[in-house]
């Protein structure tokens, strides 16, 4: 018990307070949280669409925000062979710069998704863009090319004919990506300065669309790689495996870290606890009724929230996984929820952005904006604003 308590203490929990940058899929620590951001709650299209900007191509990737720059990736052209990185001014939505590249890997995907499905990331100085073609591109904040890799160029059978979507994660000076598919399946840690492999490990030969998440700990952060086999905790810089959870996991929604627990979509939802020095994490609880659909879970306060196929949100107690309340809003969702200002924000596939008030008592729908276009990408939050993208448009939602 003492050991567990000590372990919990060693794990520093990330609870982003808002206003900060949003530099990856689901923001700081992949939590989806910007709790102090003063994002509008009673959503109103007439008042709260600060600006919108046209995009040159499709995308399921999330916008990222670094300072006053909003960066979006897209894919377009014949057979989606053209890859875009576009940088907008957060203030007014004007375009700062745009870069285009030719895809070096296969562009085929299911018609619902596209080549620009993985979200880009940043370490605050550089932007790292990634695509289903396995092209990795590093630019500085002004669009100057630093390096590029073609991971299908290097590993020719690494592709999924349905498309890939694992987003990037940068930890220190290592950029981690999962290129997991039925054929040539691997994860790789790239040197952020040159793009050269620091490490490469084989992964289960099975299609996987989840993204790596981060476990903060005093002994050094760990990258958690989810797959159909379960979860693997690795040292970001070396790829050294610390532990493995082998009870299987979903290949679409990704896990989330909160309250010292790793909540992973496995047998419904399973809460794991990192045990220092152990080859396996402790299983704290399992809740078969909390299996998320496409959207990843989010943990806010004492609750973890999951959404099912028909738009029902389940709020469960983080301590034991017991369901506290349920609320049906309008789904279905491909985008994962984010949280700010005492509310959860969901955008469904038809582009209906909905805010749900959470806190004491049960959740309630607070407002909505119909964006009128298909939206499959997860929103981003920075500077008291919410950013949502479709295949054609980027919106800033703010007071």
């Amino acid at each position: 018990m003492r050991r567990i308590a000590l372990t919990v203490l060693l794990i520093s929990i990330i609870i982003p307070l808002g206003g900060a940058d949003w530099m990856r899929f689901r923001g700081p620590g992949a939590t989806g949280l910007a709790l102090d951001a003063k994002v509008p709650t009673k959503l109103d299209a007439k008042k709260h669409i600060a600006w919108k900007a046209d995009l040159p191509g499709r995308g399921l990737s999330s916008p990222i925000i670094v300072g006053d720059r909003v960066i979006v990736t897209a894919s377009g052209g014949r057979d989606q062979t053209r890859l875009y990185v576009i940088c907008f001014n957060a203030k007014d939505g004007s375009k700062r710069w745009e870069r285009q590249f030719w895809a070096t890997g296969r562009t085929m995907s299911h018609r619902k998704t596209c080549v620009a499905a993985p979200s880009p990331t940043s370490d605050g100085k550089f932007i790292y863009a990634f695509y289903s073609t396995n092209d990795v591109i590093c630019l500085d904040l002004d669009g100057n090319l630093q390096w590029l890799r073609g991971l299908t160029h290097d590993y020719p059978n690494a592709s999924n004919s349905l498309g890939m979507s694992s987003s990037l994660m940068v930890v220190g000076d290592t950029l981690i990506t999962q290129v997991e598919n039925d054929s040539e399946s691997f994860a790789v840690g790239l040197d952020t300065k040159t793009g050269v492999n620091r490490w490469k490990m084989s992964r289960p030969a099975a299609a996987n669309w989840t993204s790596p998440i981060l476990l903060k700990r005093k002994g050094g952060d760990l990258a958690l790689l989810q797959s159909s086999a379960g979860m693997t905790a690795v040292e970001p810089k070396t790829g050294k495996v610390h532990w493995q959870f082998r009870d299987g996991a979903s290949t679409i929604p990704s896990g989330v870290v909160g309250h010292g627990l790793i909540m992973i979509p496995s047998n419904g939802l399973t809460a794991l606890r990192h045990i220092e020095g152990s080859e396996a994490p402790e299983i704290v609880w399992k809740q078969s009724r909390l299996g998320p659909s496409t959207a990843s879970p989010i943990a806010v306060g004492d609750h973890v929230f999951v959404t099912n196929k028909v738009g029902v949100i389940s709020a469960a107690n983080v301590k034991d996984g017991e369901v506290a309340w349920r609320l049906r809003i309008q789904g279905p969702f491909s985008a994962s929820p984010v949280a700010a200002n005492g509310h959860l924000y969901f955008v469904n596939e038809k582009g209906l952005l909905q805010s749900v008030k959470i806190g004491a008592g049960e959740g309630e729908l607070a407002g909505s904006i119909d964006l009128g276009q298909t939206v499959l990408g997860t929103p981003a939050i920075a500077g008291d604003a919410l950013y949502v993208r479709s295949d054609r448009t980027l919106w800033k939602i703010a007071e």
Partner: protein
Amino acid sequence: MRTIRLLACFVALFCVTSAHAAEIALAGPIRTIRAVGAKGEGNAAAANAWQTIVKRADPGDLIDLLKSMNGANDLATNWFRSAVEASTDAALKAGKKLPVNDLRAFLLDRDNDPRPRRLAYELIARVDGKQAASLIDGFLDDPSVELRRDAVARVLKQADGAIKKEDKIGKFRTALNAARDVDQIDHAAEQLRELGQQVDLARHFGFILRWSLIAPFNNADGVGFAAVYAPEKKVDLRSAFEGKDGKPAKWVKFVSDDAYGMVDFNKPFGELKGVVGYAFTEFHSDKAREAEIRLGCKNAWKLWVNGKEVWAREEYHRGMRIDQYRLKVNLKKGKNTILFKACQDERTYSWTKQWQVQLRVCDATGTAILSTDRPSQVASR
């Protein structure tokens, strides 16, 4: 008069010297970027070279940069592309003009690679949309598929808008002959059929329709992908073998009647699961040449040309499309052999029934290369 001549000589000499100086200044960075390779090789040096190029922001560099993309690998091509974009951004911001005439000359020289030519076109379009638009008609037979696509789109639009039936037929036929993208081909073919015209799409694409097939070999638990069955050792169309579960495996003739060349193993052998089948054909080339084999398949597969394995892919039921895989091959003059292995898995969902391939031979632009013994046009397709 003599003074003017001297001045002209001086100006000409200055221009030549400046151009030469620019060429020398760029030579090192271009060489560095062209040297980038697999797995990040050369990235660090290329980043410095890229900065050297972009800081010049000299529109006079653009043609050299475009030329440097000729023959460069895909990675280097992307380095150059972004250098051209960043240089152009900086030059235009500084009020400099792009060398539109030189760009046009580069674009119209078909000896240059398709990608830099397309980029030259986009640069022209950026500063002189009218001139760019005036060039489109000339791209109808262009080796750049991207440029050709714009020209075909224009003809399709004209065809859609034509009033007289014979005009529509003429335009759609022109578009079909020029089109290399599936969506444009389908559009033209569909309209021609509606106008009572006959279209042989399989011939247009170059799909191979005549095969010999053999099955079923064992693929329980996926063992068949790696297993080397008799057809991989030697193809003898008269031979027969004991197949999966003791069933006889023998070669059968198969001629696809599908417009998109689908070779469906389920038709001669039934909807089997956990099995391997092979398709064999001979392809006669009028000359020794480089070519592409393009195929779509949602089963695990392997391909051999003239007995040499070209590619193998172990992925089941993640989707298929025309030209899903593009494989470079060298054809011999005369007879070439093509052997395809199609592995079917054991899942029994409705979406795992397909056991099929569509395979064509073409050049790098997607223009069909037909076997010299291919039967004449089949009107009904």
